[in-house]
């Protein structure tokens, strides 16, 4: 077998890469005309190229009465022949490459191709699997990328609005270089290192890793800002503002362990200096 459409051989017959379907100039010109004329109604066809169905659930959540994408004329249709927008979800498995290409070819020109979800954009967590091509843009030319795992219904509506040219894209790529003598700021410098570790460990034990970190951060911020006299009132004010019994419990625990740490050590600064 010689050449396969849309497949490029790298080394021998075993190593191949896909090439996106070429787009001719007329189609690109037509697409800009379509964007002007489409205005009210855009029909969306959803192409599942081997996703986990999370993205599909969110797409349908976007058409429910709460987000109601149909008020903008965005309608999910059952056939690619009716579609203006093709929504590709999933990491493009080897088995789903051909069906996806057939859906793409079946949609009338000009069509807008949207890559949906982390898998659609770049393969997501499946990017290095042997059985996936890793992203929609490997097989078809993509106009808009909607990242997220899965994107929320609001992000879906925003993405489709970007695809239709109604809203502008907000995200900008950035590239930073380290400056001369730049230093990372130390946090909570008033608290001894060992006590920080104890507070953080306790908070993470009680509230789980991510939330524990956030709670420990808030707790130590309060400790740093207040003096021995004001610490109780500050903690109380913070807890009253949050009004959460779980947080109150955790804060009580943190306060207890930090007090125990303070009282349990007779010479906090000097003892450590000697080791």
């Amino acid at each position: 077998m010689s050449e396969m459409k849309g497949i490029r051989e790298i080394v021998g017959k075993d190593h191949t890469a896909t090439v996106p379907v070429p787009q001719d100039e007329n189609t690109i010109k037509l697409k800009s005309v379509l964007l002007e004329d489409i205005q009210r109604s855009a029909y969306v066809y959803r192409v599942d190229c081997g996703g986990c169905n999370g993205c599909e659930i969110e797409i349908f959540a976007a058409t429910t009465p709460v987000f109601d994408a149909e008020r903008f004329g965005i309608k999910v249709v059952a056939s690619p022949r009716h579609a203006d927008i093709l929504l590709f979800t999933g990491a493009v498995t080897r088995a789903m490459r051909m069906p996806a290409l057939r859906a793409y070819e079946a949609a009338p020109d000009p069509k807008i191709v949207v890559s949906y979800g982390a898998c659609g954009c770049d393969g997501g967590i499946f990017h290095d699997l042997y059985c996936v091509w890793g992203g929609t843009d490997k097989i078809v030319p993509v106009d808009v990328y909607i990242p997220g795992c899965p994107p929320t219904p609001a992000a879906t509506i925003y993405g489709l609005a970007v695809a239709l040219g109604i809203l502008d894209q907000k995200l900008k790529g950035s590239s930073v270089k380290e400056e001369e003598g730049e230093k990372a700021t130390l946090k909570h410098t008033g608290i001894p290192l060992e006590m920080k570790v104890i507070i953080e460990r306790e908070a993470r034990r009680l509230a789980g890793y991510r939330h524990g970190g956030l709670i420990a951060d808030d707790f130590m911020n309060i400790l740093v800002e207040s003096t021995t006299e004001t610490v109780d009132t500050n903690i109380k004010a913070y807890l009253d503002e949050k009004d959460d019994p779980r947080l109150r419990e955790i804060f009580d625990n943190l306060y207890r362990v930090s007090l125990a740490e303070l009282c349990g050590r007779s010479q906090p600064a000097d003892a450590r200096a000697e080791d």
Partner: protein
Amino acid sequence: MFKLFKSITKAGDSIVKYPFAPLDVSDDFRGKPEYNAKDCIACAACTRACPANALIMETKADENSRRWELSMARCIFCGRCEEVCPTGAIKLSKEFELAVTNKADLYEDATFTLAHCRECETPFAPRKAVDYAMDLLVQSGISEEQQAKRHEQVETCPECLRKQSMLDYDNVFHGKHLNNVHLKQEERV
């Protein structure tokens, strides 16, 4: 009929105003990872934690640089990078409007320089991480004399440190190993 209208007005409008008005997301919403390059020490903890390999760290010794990159395309917004970041340089924000038309806009990167060993001049760690370690030691309240000693230690690569401690007579305990061998021989007998 009027009863129906009445109940409709009572039920109110369930549709969110989203594209026309900002959407209120919950407190724990995990959106775009907000990265503060100034606080980053290029320790690569986040790149190890990232399940989707959306975060990448490349070290190039010949160019004296370490490059951090975040690909929003691959990010699954799990918040693991935030969990492990020792300096809090990366935090998940509530930003969810991430759709782009140009794929290059999904990428963020930052470049850092490397610190060179005092003894052998090879790069061994990012400069900011070395400085951060020293700052932590100073903040933990060690004396001035120790600071100078630690400074030398911190700025030496692990290889050279090992060599130094081998040459330092106080650190070598031959007796310990000899005794172990001796004991084993006794057991056999």
